C-alpha cells in the first residue's frame, strides 16, 4: 500500500512534467497542424540555459525559492526566444508548403539543435544544480513525500493555471483560439495569424522551459540528447489526450507518467520506452482522435 502510494506520487510528478511538454506540442499542433519535432530540443536548451545561469549567478549551491524562480525565468526566456527564432526562420517560410515538407524541416531543426548542443555544451552529461533543498515532509514506512515532488506538482499546476487564464481570459488567448479554429476567418476579423502563431510558439516553448527546470530538479543529469525520449513520450501524451486539446494534453501527460511508473515498478524497466509507443499505437487504432479530441471529418 505504501509502495503503491509512493509510485502514485512519483507517477504524478513525472506525469505533470510530461504534461507541461505535451502542452507545447498540442498548442502548436492545434494552430498549425504540424508536429514540432524541435520542441524536445528547445526543452533541452532550456535545461542548459538554467545550468549555465546558475553557474554564472553563483546560485548553484543555494537551493531555495529564489533560485527556483530565477532559473525558471531564465529557462523560460531562453526557450521562448529559441522557439520564436525557429518559427521565424524555419517554419514561417514553409507556411503554405505540403505537410510532409514541414515535418521534414522540423526533423532537420531538431537534428540541428541536437548536434549544435553537442558542439556547444559538450556531449558529456552535466549535473544540474540543486534548486530546492531536499526535505522529507512526511515519512510513513516506505512512503516518503519529498520536497522535489511537491515542487514539481505545485509549479506544474501553477503553470497550467496560468495557461488556462491566458487562453480563456485574455485577448491574445481568444485570438489563439480563433486562429486555431479558422485562421483565414480570424485574419478577416483583424487578427494577425503570423503574430498569434509566434505567440503560440513563445508560450509553448516557455512551458517546455518550466518542464526542463523541473526535470533537472528531479533527475539532475542533463545532456544534449536528453530531449529525444522525453519529447517522444510527451508527444504520445499529447496524442493520447487528443492532439490540439489543452486539457487533453494534461490528462494524457498524467496518464503517461502514471502508467510508466507502474510498468517500471511492477513489470520491467527494459520495456519503459516501448510502452509509450505501445500506448500510442493502441490509442490511434481504437480512438484516433484521442481521449478528449474532436474527430474531424474529411471533406473534398
Amino acid at each position, binding site marked *: 500500500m505504501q509502495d503503491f502510494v509512493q509510485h502514485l506520487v512519483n507517477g504524478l510528478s513525472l506525469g505533470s512534467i510530461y504534461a507541461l511538454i505535451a502542452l507545447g506540442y498540442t498548442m502548436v499542433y492545434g494552430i498549425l*497542424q*504540424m*508536429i514540432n519535432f524541435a520542441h524536445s530540443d528547445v526543452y533541452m536548451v532550456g535545461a542548459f540555459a538554467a545550468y549555465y545561469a546558475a553557474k554564472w549567478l553563483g546560485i548553484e549551491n543555494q537551493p531555495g525559492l529564489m533560485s527556483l524562480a530565477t532559473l525558471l525565468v531564465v529557462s523560460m526566456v531562453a526557450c521562448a526566444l529559441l522557439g520564436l527564432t525557429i518559427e521565424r526562420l*524555419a517554419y514561417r*517560410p*514553409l507556411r503554405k*508548403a*505540403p*505537410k*510532409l*515538407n514541414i*515535418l*521534414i*524541416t522540423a*526533423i*532537420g*531543426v531538431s*537534428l*540541428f539543435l*541536437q*548536434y*549544435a548542443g553537442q*558542439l556547444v555544451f559538450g556531449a558529456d552529461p552535466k549535473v544540474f544544480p540543486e534548486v530546492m533543498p531536499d526535505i522529507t515532509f512526511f515519512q510513513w514506512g516506505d512512503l516518503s513525500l519529498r520536497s522535489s515532488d511537491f515542487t514539481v506538482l505545485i509549479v506544474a499546476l501553477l503553470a497550467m493555471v496560468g495557461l488556462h487564464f491566458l487562453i480563456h481570459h485574455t485577448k491574445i488567448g481568444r485570438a489563439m483560439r480563433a486562429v486555431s479554429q479558422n485562421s483565414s476567418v480570424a485574419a478577416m476579423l483583424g487578427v494577425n495569424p503570423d503574430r498569434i502563431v509566434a505567440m503560440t510558439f513563445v508560450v509553448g516553448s516557455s512551458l517546455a522551459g518550466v518542464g526542463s527546470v523541473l526535470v533537472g530538479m528531479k533527475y539532475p543529469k542533463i545532456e544534449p540528447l536528453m530531449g*529525444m525520449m522525453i519529447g*517522444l513520450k510527451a*508527444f*504520445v501524451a499529447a*496524442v493520447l489526450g487528443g492532439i490540439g486539446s489543452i486539457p487533453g494534453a494534461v490528462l494524457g501527460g498524467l496518464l503517461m507518467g502514471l502508467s510508466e511508473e507502474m510498468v517500471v515498478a511492477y513489470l520491467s524497466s*527494459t*520495456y519503459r*520506452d*516501448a510502452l*509509450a*509507443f*505501445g500506448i*500510442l*499505437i493502441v490509442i*490511434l*487504432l481504437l480512438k*484516433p482522435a484521442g481521449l478528449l479530441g474532436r474527430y474531424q471529418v*474529411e471533406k*473534398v
Partner: protein
Amino acid sequence: MLRSLKLPFLSFLGLIAVGLVLEFGFSAFIQITALFVLVNMIMAMSLNLVNGTSGQFSLGHAGFMAIGAYVGAYLSQHWALFPEGLTALNFFVYTLLGGSLAAVFGFLVGQPSLRLKGDYLAIVTLGFGEIIRVALLNMDFLGGARGIHGIPTVPDGFGLSRFMAQYLFGSFWVILCFFFLWRLVHSNQGRGFLSVREDEIAAESMGVNTTAVKVRAFVVSAFFAGVAGVLSAYFVRYINPSSFGFLRSVDAVIMVVLGGMGSFTGSIVAAILITIMPELLRTVQQVTGVDLRMLIYALALVLVMILRPQGIFGSKELRDFWRKK
C-alpha cells in the same frame, strides 16, 4: 523476355565497370564506402515507394532493415541450404528470407497503421521502428545489446577479391530492386499508388481500395528495406540494435527528399551524395578541428526544404532530362 532484360543487364555491366575501377584504383576505405552506397541506394529506393510514389510517410524503415539484418546474420551462422562449393547461393537465399520476414512485418505493421495519415502515420511507424529495436535489445539468443559479430560474408572465389564479391552481390540486388520497383510503378499497380498519393478521396471514389494499395506498397518497400539490412550485415559483418536507430530511418528519409519524392533515379543520386558527403566533410573537420558534419547535414536538410522543396530531381527521372519535350 530477352529484350526486357537488356537494360538491367547493361546497367549491371556498368556497375561492374565502376567496381573494377574501385578495385584497382582506390583504397579499402573508399571501397567500403562504395558498399554502403549500394545499401543506401536500396534503402532510399524502397522508402521512395512509400514516401514518394504512394505519398505516405514512414519514419521506421530502420526497423525493417534491422529485421533483415538479423535474419541474414542469424541464418548465415546457423543454417545452410546448399552444400560446400555452392555457398554463394546460400547468401541469395538468406537475403530473400531476410527480405521476406521484413515484408511479413511490413504487412503486420502496415495493415493497422496505414489507415492513419500524414503526421500520425509518421509517428506510428517511428514507434514500430523503436519497438523492433527494443525487442531486439531484449532477445538474448540474438545477442541482446551486444549484437551479432563475426558474420560470414559473401565467399570470394573465381579469382574475385572479397571486395569484388561483396560488390557484385550488392550490385545484383540494387539492379533487381531498381527494375522491380520501376516496372511496378509503371504498371497497373503503380497507377494505384500514384492515385492514392494525388488524391485519396478521388481514388477511393473510383474504386481503388486505398488501404490495400497502401499496404501493398508498404510490404514491397519493407521487403527491400530488409534486403538492404541483410546486405549491410554482410558488408559490415557486425550488427547490434543501436545501428538501426531512429537516425537510420531519418537518413533514408533525407535521401528520398533530397533526390525528389517519387523519383527513383533521384533517390539513387541522393544516396550516393548522402553517403559520400560525410566522408568528404571529414577533411573539413580536420581543418576546423570540430565535428561539423552532422550540423551541416541537418542545416542542409532545412535549407533544401525551404529553397528547393521538390528535391534535386523533383518527380522527374534521369531520362526525362534528355528526352525531347
